[in-house]
């Protein structure tokens, strides 16, 4: 490979951070969005802080570079690219299970390298569970984010196109939607992943391809309404090209739907991945995979519970926070409230 994957990951991370800054500036400029952001903050402070925390963890786990590994660390390759998060947990690997805050190994009583420093214990390979759970944040954000980036543009292109231009394209989109809707989602998902081979990208593509239909229907219906708006007719009478009308007048009116859908879709996708992990075709390092792995450990005696609890709690808290923010966004951006305020 010419460009190593950690370079790509670094660049994408940088791009995302810049995109966030840009979005924040746009939101700050447009009174309607600024208002909405303010209301959102006053309603869901805790949830927003939680989501921001997860994002920070994901960010910390996305910036990687090579070198700088101390001599005495033996469990990583000397020239492996390590993220900030990896580096924070360097050398915490034990030989086997440790219970939370234990000072000796869980089975047998050999002394640990880091007694009392594993707040969530370690897994069967001796990896720190807190570390693994934190690493899961990046995977979850990747699944939710990347998949939405695939599904939402797909839904917009098909939905807005069908609604705005109608005719043959509408028929085609309708056919596509009906076809997709008549195949059981999970089966299609599994088939797609099998066809593309396992891996983060193929899971995201498969999830994306199977999850755009609902939003597509919504945007199509909404566009049908919007295209009859007087100012769209007025724009046409002024000779504004169709594509420009879509970009200037239709898409901004779908923005609130895009935001709401993105947030609500996000948590659904992270949960879907957990299901896939349980079927053995999830993304490496996800909480779903940890939960799946912890199944066997529950049958051990004495029971190993911290693995499951940590990954389950990490997943649960993120989903809860995202859904709670999503609900508030829906309240704040609901078209009816938007119209009242303007």
């Amino acid at each position, binding site marked *: 490979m010419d460009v190593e994957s950690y370079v790509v990951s670094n660049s994408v991370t940088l791009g995302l951070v810049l995109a966030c800054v840009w979005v924040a500036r746009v939101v700050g400029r447009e009174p309607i969005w600024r208002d909405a952001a303010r209301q959102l903050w006053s309603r869901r402070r805790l949830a927003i802080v939680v989501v921001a925390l997860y994002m920070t963890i994901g960010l910390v786990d996305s910036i990687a570079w090579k070198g700088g590994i101390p001599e005495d660390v033996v469990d990583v390759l000397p020239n492996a690219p390590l993220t900030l998060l990896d580096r924070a947990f360097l050398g915490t690997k034990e030989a086997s299970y440790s219970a939370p805050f234990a000072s000796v190994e869980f089975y047998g009583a050999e002394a640990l390298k880091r007694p009392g420093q594993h707040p969530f214990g370690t897994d069967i390979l001796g990896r720190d569970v807190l570390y693994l759970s934190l690493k899961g944040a990046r995977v979850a954000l990747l699944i939710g984010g990347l998949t939405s980036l695939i599904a939402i543009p797909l839904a917009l292109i098909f939905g807005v196109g069908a609604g705005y231009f109608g005719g043959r394209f509408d028929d085609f989109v309708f056919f596509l939607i009906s076809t997709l809707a008549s195949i059981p989602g999970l089966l299609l998902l599994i088939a797609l992943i099998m066809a593309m081979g396992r891996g983060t990208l193929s899971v995201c593509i498969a999830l994306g391809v199977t999850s755009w239909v609902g939003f597509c229907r919504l945007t199509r219906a909404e566009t049908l309404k919007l295209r*009859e708006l*007087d100012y769209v007719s*007025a724009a046409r*009478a002024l*000779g504004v090209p169709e594509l420009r009308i879509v970009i200037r007048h239709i898409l901004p009116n779908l923005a609130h739907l895009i935001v709401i859908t993105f947030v609500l879709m996000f948590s659904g996708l992270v949960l879907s991945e957990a299901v896939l992990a349980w079927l053995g075709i999830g993304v490496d390092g996800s909480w779903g995979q940890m939960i799946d792995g912890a199944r066997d450990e529950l049958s051990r005696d004495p029971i190993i519970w911290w693995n499951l609890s940590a990954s389950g709690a990490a997943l649960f808290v993120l989903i809860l926070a995202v859904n709670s923010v999503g609900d508030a966004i829906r309240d704040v951006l609901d078209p009816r409230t938007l119209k009242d305020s303007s």
Partner: protein
Amino acid sequence: MSRLLEVRGLQTAFPSATGETRIVDDVSFNLDSGEVLALVGESGSGKSMTALSILRLVPKPGRVIAGEIKLEGRDLLDFSVSEMRRVRGGRIAMIFQEPMTCLNPVVAVGAQVMEAIGLHDQIGQVDARARTRELFAEVGIPDPEARLDAYPHELSGGLKQRVMIAMALSTRPEILIADEPTTALDVTVQAQILALLSDLQRDRGTAILLITHDLGIVNELADRVAVMYAGRLVEVAPRQELLSNPLHPYTRGLLRSIPALSPPGVRLPEIPGVVPSPDHWPNGCRFSTRCGERFEPCAEIFPEETAPTSDRRVWCHAVDASSRDPEGEAL
């Protein structure tokens, strides 16, 4: 005055259960440069569809099925999509009834006008802004500089309509189609907007096709009047002659219902009934279901066009008979 727009035998139809319903049927009129032609008729008579047909903006699945729309001799129906786009807003601009909803609520009004300018002229931001400011001043928007950055909801209905007019004028169109430009406004604001349109027509020489259901406002502005009923023209005449000597029973009915033209204290007689819906239009004279002067052939045979004088046209059996008889006797 030169002939700017010539509409001949225009037919616009929507598909219906029984084939196609012609909601604009055989409409012909001319618009000379610098002239104000009023297109008058009750709501539902096809005025807006006529205007949209000219711009080739009839909403799907409707379409123009026959006719010619010649702009300085070239038929707009033959124009390519991109040529047509240059005509829209470039040579023919249109303003609509509802200034409230014709502006994008999330974009500042100045930016919307600047965008319209940018569509037809390659000029920079600063120039576009300066030109927008001038336009705002020209259409009588007070404090134009400050209004440039206002959002539509911060402006009154009258100001919004002025912004729409500024937007329509931004590219110096030869023809302005104003579809019920004052219907949604208060009476006093209505008068101001009409005065503005009149000034613009005088100062810029813009030809105006003024669409209205209110014969009352015709008096202030129009040079000629075309009266439309149920998709057909019923009478076309110079304003003065139409108001003083209406020939068609429908025109007379409309005139009787204008408060300003009747003696005070008299209860205004209305034309009984309503415009029938397009699939219930009679075969003969479309007005025959409501006409007080209806006689034998009216419901069955469509009246021919008659020209009582060289600049008047009317479609009515009664007029037909009375104007033809003397000639017949002379023979």
